């Protein structure tokens, strides 16, 4: 662990530890030259440094609003460091499924579009991610920023994949990194042989699997060692009925489901390209506005009233509730707000997970 105040690379002063990824530690760091905060990443002890520089060069090629920008790379006393744009927020995983059973279709469309745009830029730069998952997408506190991260680390993960294939079967690996990647991994990557080339099409499968997970709360092919079995047998879980049971949300859900299906095409030559994926997402009719949080305090026939965290009252009709759980008095809810009288109107409303 790097101590607060440590100065590295002649200009970076470590402010605090932020998080650990599968293979690296991340620190909030002050860049004294530009007088701005950045993210400093360094491989965890025991992780190979060999390809860190190569991966930094690859990720630095990508310049897009939806990709966390790589600014710098340096080595110091045998350790290597990567400086990346700091996203003041959390991972998509923590911002969504850690709190709610599934995301609503408007948020899904917003995320799908933004992630796809980041993918187009990376694919146009000749860089495939190959380890796309909700923990590799960063979102700002109110999700105004959506940025794919860890392109570099994905390259190192690739090395791990290669080594695992040499030793035996990728699908039998006990590595935590590989297990974490499996639910979103394209079949051509999962069942590849040594020397097989895995291209950018794998990212399209991964974004499809990721959106399936976010929209349903379930992994499309299950978890752990069941994933390769289910992928091999083409045994994906069906879409839950709640996606289309509420007619208020059904048209958007159906459009999203259709795009996800195209991403999860087994024949990689028939899968959507990232550019086509963006076009299809741009065609979705959705609204993304900041989500608020509150508790349902009362119900009158089919109308509910929420007391928000800011102690304001908001009402919603039961048809605005989307997802696995129905609304009830006492439920924690996340929602967007529209002006209304006598109270603002919440739509859509998602009932939170009960912890």
């Amino acid at each position, binding site marked *: 662990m790097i101590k607060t105040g440590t100065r590295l690379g002649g200009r970076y002063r470590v402010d605090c530890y932020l998080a650990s990824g599968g293979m690296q530690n991340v620190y909030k760091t002050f860049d004294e030259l530009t007088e701005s905060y950045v993210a400093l990443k360094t491989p965890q002890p025991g992780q190979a440094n060999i390809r860190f520089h190569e991966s930094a060069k690859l990720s630095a090629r990508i310049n*897009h609003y939806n990709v966390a920008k790589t600014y710098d790379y340096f080595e110091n006393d045998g350790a290597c460091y990567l400086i990346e744009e700091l996203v003041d927020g959390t991972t998509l995983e923590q911002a969504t499924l850690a709190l709610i059973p599934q995301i609503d279709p*408007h948020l899904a469309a917003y995320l799908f579009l933004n992630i796809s745009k980041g993918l187009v830029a990376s694919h146009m730069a000749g860089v495939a991610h190959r380890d796309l998952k909700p923990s590799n997408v960063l979102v700002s506190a109110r999700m105004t920023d959506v940025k794919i991260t860890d392109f570099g680390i994905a390259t190192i993960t690739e090395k791990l994949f290669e080594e695992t294939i040499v030793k035996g079967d990728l699908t039998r690996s006990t590595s935590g990194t590989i297990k974490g990647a499996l639910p979103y991994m394209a079949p051509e990557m999962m069942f590849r042989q040594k020397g097989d080339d895995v291209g950018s099409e794998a990212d399209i499968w991964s974004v499809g699997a990721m959106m399936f997970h976010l929209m349903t709360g379930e992994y499309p092919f299950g978890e752990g060692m069941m994933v390769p079995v289910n992928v091999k047998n083409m045994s994906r879980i069906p879409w839950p009925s709640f996606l289309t049971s509420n007619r208020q949300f059904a*048209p*958007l859900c159906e459009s999203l489901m259709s795009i996800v299906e195209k991403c999860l095409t087994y024949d990689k030559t028939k899968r959507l390209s990232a550019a086509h994926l963006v076009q299809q997402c*741009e065609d*979705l*009719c959705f609204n993304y506005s900041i989500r608020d949080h509150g508790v349902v305090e009362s119900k009158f026939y089919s109308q509910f009233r929420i007391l928000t965290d800011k102690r304001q009252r908001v009402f919603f009709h039961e048809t605005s509730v989307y997802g696995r759980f129905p609304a009830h008095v006492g439920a924690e809810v996340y929602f967007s707000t*529209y002006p209304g009288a006598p109270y603002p109107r919440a739509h859509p409303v998602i009932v939170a997970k009960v912890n």
Partner: protein
Amino acid sequence: MQGSIAEKFPQMDVAIAKIIEGCLEHLPDNRPKMREVAEILAHNLVKDRHRAQIIKDGELFELNATNRKVNIRSHVGAITIQYDGINFIISDISGSVFINNKKVTGGSSMLSACVITIGEGNLRAFLTFNISHPELAA
């Protein structure tokens, strides 16, 4: 500069020609803000590529370049919305119609996402309106 671009390039969209002419004004105060320039260019470059969906009691109404007008009725009023290739405009209303709780009149533009309320009191009908987000390039 007024008129010179439009004259030289008669096939150019009038709004774009005008904003370029504005950029070339000798007096800095007469030049448009960059935000206005970006808005006009963006609007025109994605002309006719928008879609809008309106949902009323689970029924879907769609507006796009091939279906430019919808009329939605409830038993207490009605709203007609038209797509001109850039904006979605309320072309006609009957009864009381509210957009995000503000009473509207014919001729106003729709917001990119809003709740339309037709009528007042217990008989009001709620509609959701959302548009797509076409862009030039990713």
